[in-house]
């Protein structure tokens, strides 16, 4: 799958519909709950699984090569800044992993560039980008090279 949705857990909120990069999570018109309309266009990216507030979405590996009986579950917690995984093998073995997803409170350290001092119009002609040269953290400034040394054709 691909992803599938448990009937008793989904409340039809549509978070998965909103986030799916492949546009394959849709709301079933009869049951008012989400489902995967096109499993063969699912990348198993888990974006919908992570976004589901009801933990209603799971993945069953692609039928053409993944035998039944496994699961890879995930819990993404923005407030804690972590993502937790549980891998269950077909034979029942389990592996758990936890990783950080951010080092900062969500979004707070991302600047609003509209509030920065307005750059001089002449700076448009320089090759420097916003935050540069300081953001490169090098002494010599932005590197460049001497055009007269260019060579053409087969060279090495």
């Amino acid at each position, binding site marked *: 799958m*691909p992803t599938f949705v448990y009937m008793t857990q989904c409340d039809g909120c549509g978070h998965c519909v909103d*986030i*799916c*990069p*492949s*546009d*394959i999570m*849709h709301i079933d018109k009869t049951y008012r709950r989400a489902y995967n309309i096109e499993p*063969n*266009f*699912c990348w*198993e*990216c*888990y974006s919908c699984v992570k976004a589901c507030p009801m933990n209603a979405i799971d*993945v069953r*590996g*692609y*039928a*053409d*090569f993944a*035998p039944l009986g*496994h*699961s*890879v579950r*995930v819990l*993404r917690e923005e407030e804690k800044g972590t*993502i937790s995984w549980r*891998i269950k093998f*077909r034979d029942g*073995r389990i*592996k758990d*992993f936890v*990783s*950080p997803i*951010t*080092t900062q*409170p969500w979004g707070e350290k*991302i*600047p609003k*560039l509209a509030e*920065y001092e*307005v750059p001089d119009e002449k700076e*448009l*002609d320089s*090759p420097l*980008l*916003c*935050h*540069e040269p300081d*953001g*490169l*953290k*090098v002494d010599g400034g*932005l590197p*460049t*090279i001497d*055009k007269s040394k260019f*060579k*053409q*054709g087969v060279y090495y």
Partner: protein
Amino acid sequence: MGFNTVFEECDILVVGGGMGGTGAAYEARYWGRDLKIVVAEKANIDRSGAVAQGLYAINCYMGMRWGENQPEDHVRYARNDLMGMVREDLAYDMARHVDSAVHQFEEWGLPIMRDPETGRYQREGKWQIMIHGESYKPIVAEAARKSADKIDNRIMVTHLLMDESRPNTVGGAIGFNVRTGALHVYKAKTVIIGAGGASHIFKPRSVGEGMGRTWYAPWSSASAYALPIQVGAKMTQMENRIVLARFKDGYGPVGAYFLHLKTYTQNAYGEEYESKWYDELKSMVGPYVDHHPTPTCLRNHAFVREVAAGRGPIHMVTKEAFQDPHKETVGWENFLGMTVGQAVVWASQDIDPKYVNPELTTSEPYVMGSHATCSGAWASGPEDLSPDEYFWGYNRMMTVEGLFGAGDALGGTAHAFSSGSFTEGRLAAKAAVKYIRDHANDRVDVSDKQIEELREQIYKPLENYEIGRNEIVAGTVSPSYILPIHGLQRLEKIMDEYAGGITVNYMTNEPLLKRGLEHLRILQEDLEHIGAEDLHQLQRAWELKHRALASECVVHHTLFRQETRWPGYYYRGDHPQLDDDNWHVLTVSRRDPESGEWTMEKAPVYHIVD
């Protein structure tokens, strides 16, 4: 069709909010305080593009602050990996700026691992740094959201608009809202294409439910190429497709395994096999076989030949490395951070690499410009680095005025990856602001006639279906239309069999390519009769049209280059040797938007560093 029309006028329109597009939106605000900046995205920028599910490494970071690599080292590395040919001016330019992007990501909250001894970023290899990047995309998306005036999610851009008072000048873009069906018309002074490269133009190894588990995202539908091709922009190196050696079925990446975990490959009988194919490769590519590191395509060649010789499967030897609990954790988290599907495959097949050496495979080909190959639009370089003939006024501007690109869209800049694509977006955005300042008195002129003609084309698949559906009782078989999945499968079969896909071991030749072009021409005719049942299928229909047009370009380029430059990516059976005397050049194409005729030319490779 009774859909609303939504008009939007803006200064900078960013098409596609992946890494390149978010970088463009971010930087554009810094230079263009008073400008209106809009992003049109097919999905939702929080999880769109190739980085939607995250990354476990940033593959392009110089580390200039610690004296690790300089931009010229990157140029040497990228051109070596691509058998001598990249746009070195563009590559150098990206490389000299990329560190500042990565430093920003870290400030914003992206967890970058540190080497406990040196305090520097933890290197996976010479170029890669290791990250906990599950939220890489949402973090970067937030930066774009704070800069742009507007983010329009769920807009499938189908065409660019052209200005009608000025020759060869972009006037915006048009598409539809996948949810409401509304036609969205963007009149824009500049357009920056950050759309995706091409998965699913060649038949994938899995053709059932698992066809979506391609290496590159299935939503990378070649819009990066089709949009500029439609308006006659020149393209380069479109023959330079990439084939990936990856873990079988899940296409889990091998970079961290080779570089950080020090795992290695062997054939089914436990033998090292790459050296066996050295003499054969030497006879094909000459001195390139001795370059270090060995170009990726040449390693692929050994893999493909060893399997064809009956000694597959190729295994990754993990059992030794995975005895170290730290390495075992890195091995698994590497997948969970960017290719969860590989963990699903291993769990389902009881493959624990601590006890079993997993199988590898070589993938179907992909065409894209941000990873390790450099297909894409022919663009101007920066003034201070580019040879005169590669500079036409604005960095990253294509051969259409006011049309810029980043990431997969731009040709010649291999090994940019996520951070490099973001950086290219920034470079394009700054140049676009300068373009707008220089053309302050110009007004966008797009007539209603142009819009109405495109409106008719855009919704035609819905009409085809509505009319044709009444002829039949039920089911998917109609004499008057084909569905998007039908067209996609035909395209993949044509490309696979005629242009060097998996079922022919990546082999093609002139007669095959010419026959493939005939099939593609007829497919184009049939795509006029494609039927879409609903708006979702209408998106699929336009994705397919973009893929088909990009494929045509790929075949023309493959036909033009009469040599085998990248054995392991594809072979010209009629020209099995690398030919530096005639083909140490970049290939450049243009499709005439009126006639649909293609012209091909050679462009010189400039080496800007030793």
